């Protein structure tokens, strides 16, 4: 006869070192075993959508920065593409190239934080610091061009806020050369460390059909072994011109779709981003980056849904225009928001320590979850 036991409710967050911000998880635990996870959001709900309704179209760009603050360029990119699609603007080649390079640099920077904090959650602090050190290189490259370290307000509707800095191409190439060996070092230090593998392999397995049904995207979806990348499957900007692979989870250390696969997909994606940058950085055509910026941004009546592949997944902007200078409604389909929903499914029957590993491997940014 089983003893009657009571479940303990453990509140993780909003202030907790590894909830990546102000997420609150309500864990129902039995000893260390987790029976149920209920995420509570909204501790960083900053009313983006209300602000967007009160702003003019170009004034929304600084606010999009603050959604996914680790990948601001990607946010700007998606928003600019959406409004451009609504207005039918064709941007110059040079702008396209710079946008792609910037977005890929930002993708690397964002993955660095994601990988690092995933490692730090599991207890390896040193790789985290190494990765932040490398991220600093990317920030300084972007900073030289647009003047800010994190929130760039760089990609505008129809163009860019600044042309690239004269040193940009040289520094980017230097960075690519610098960064390749550090990926190898990271692999040796963390990815193939036995303890790290033990902690992440076979943990939080996400089957493909569940992932799709939950709308997961980005590395979370690709970690489950499906080749789906918007850069390839719904090409935007000029991504169809570049040659790159889509890394997917293969179950190298355990089962397909476990934490290690999601982690590994991010590292391999950084390598692919380097490839794209290498291809693009030599071919930037001449031109004026601000020539296509409309004097007055007043899109016609209509709706548009534009999605881009942000580091965390599919970032979609659903914009309704009523023909005035202010958007009528801007809804953000934030990848973290949707990916986080999987957490409840993944965590059942795992230990408390695994929750941290799983949450780290999903890689959420609370600014985007709560908007």
């Amino acid at each position, binding site marked *: 006869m089983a003893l009657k036991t009571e479940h303990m409710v453990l509140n993780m967050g909003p202030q907790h070192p590894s909830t990546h911000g102000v997420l609150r998880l309500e864990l129902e635990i039995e000893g260390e075993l987790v029976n149920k996870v209920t995420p509570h959001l909204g501790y960083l709900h900053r009313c983006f959508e209300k602000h967007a309704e009160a702003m003019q179209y170009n004034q929304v760009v600084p*606010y999009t920065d603050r959604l996914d603050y680790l990948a601001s360029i990607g946010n700007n990119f998606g928003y600019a593409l959406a409004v451009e699609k609504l207005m039918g603007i064709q941007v110059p080649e040079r702008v396209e190239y710079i946008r792609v390079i910037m977005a890929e640099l930002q993708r690397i920077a964002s993955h660095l934080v994601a990988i690092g904090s995933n490692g730090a959650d599991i207890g390896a602090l040193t790789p985290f610091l190494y990765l932040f*050190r490398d991220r600093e290189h990317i920030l300084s490259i972007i900073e030289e061009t*647009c*003047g800010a370290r994190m929130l760039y307000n760089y990609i505008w509707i129809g163009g860019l806020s600044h042309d690239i800095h004269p040193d940009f191409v040289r520094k980017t190439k230097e960075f690519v050369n610098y960064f390749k060996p550090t990926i190898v070092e990271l692999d*040796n230090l*963390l990815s193939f460390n*036995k303890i790290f593998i033990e902690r992440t392999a076979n943990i939080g397995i996400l089957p493909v059909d569940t992932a799709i049904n939950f709308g997961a995207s980005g590395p979370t979806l690709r970690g489950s072994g499906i080749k789906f990348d918007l850069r390839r499957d719904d090409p935007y900007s000029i991504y169809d011109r570049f040659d790159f692979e889509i890394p997917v989870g293969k179950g190298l250390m355990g089962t397909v779709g476990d934490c290690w696969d999601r982690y590994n997909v991010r590292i391999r994606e950084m390598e692919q981003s380097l490839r794209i940058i290498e291809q693009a950085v030599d071919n930037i055509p001449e031109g004026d980056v601000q020539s296509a910026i409309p004097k007055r941004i007043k899109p016609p009546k209509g709706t548009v849904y534009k999605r881009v592949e942000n580091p965390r997944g599919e970032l979609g902007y659903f914009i309704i225009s009523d023909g005035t200078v202010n958007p009528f409604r801007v809804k953000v389909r934030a990848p973290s928001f949707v990916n986080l929903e999987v957490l409840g499914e993944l965590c059942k029957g795992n230990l408390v320590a695994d929750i941290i590993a799983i949450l780290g491997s999903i890689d959420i940014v609370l600014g985007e979850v709560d908007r």
Partner: protein
Amino acid sequence: MNQYFKNTWLGIYTVLVGMKITFKHLFTPAVTIQYPEVKLKLPERERNRLYVNMDDCIGCDQCSRACPVNCIEIETVKSITGEDLGTTSNGKKKALWVTKFNIDFAKCCYCQLCVFPCPTDCIYMTDVFEFSEYDRNNLVYKFATLTEEEASEKKLNFEKFTAEKEAQKAEAAAKQKDEQKPAS
């Protein structure tokens, strides 16, 4: 059983590999920038505290309208005929007294949207970022060069001027009426 020994070996081996890497880093020089003593040279496009060159400001209010945050407050008073406000450095004639030009840096989001529309390039971003304060009110920067007395004087002047003008207008209108009356 094989797996058992393989695990043991992998455990020890990967730990040693990791230790080798960190050992190498023990002797790599630090990348730290020792802030108060060493300061990085910031790039020229650096976006930090705004500065307004009031000599060039014509009080057109464009920056304030471009600001997504509404952190720029501008109040202007029209100049009266006869007053010479001078010209800006790119030759624009000033026509407004700027009595208030406040930027609240506690609200500012440093997006640079206010810089682009300025017709005289008098508002721009500098690389000054060290301006922490003990009191939040000190973060409201007042750029207007006119003192409060001067500002109120200008306001009064303008009111007087408009009043005079109104009076003149009224007089002229009355005159016109007077002139029109006999004609009809």
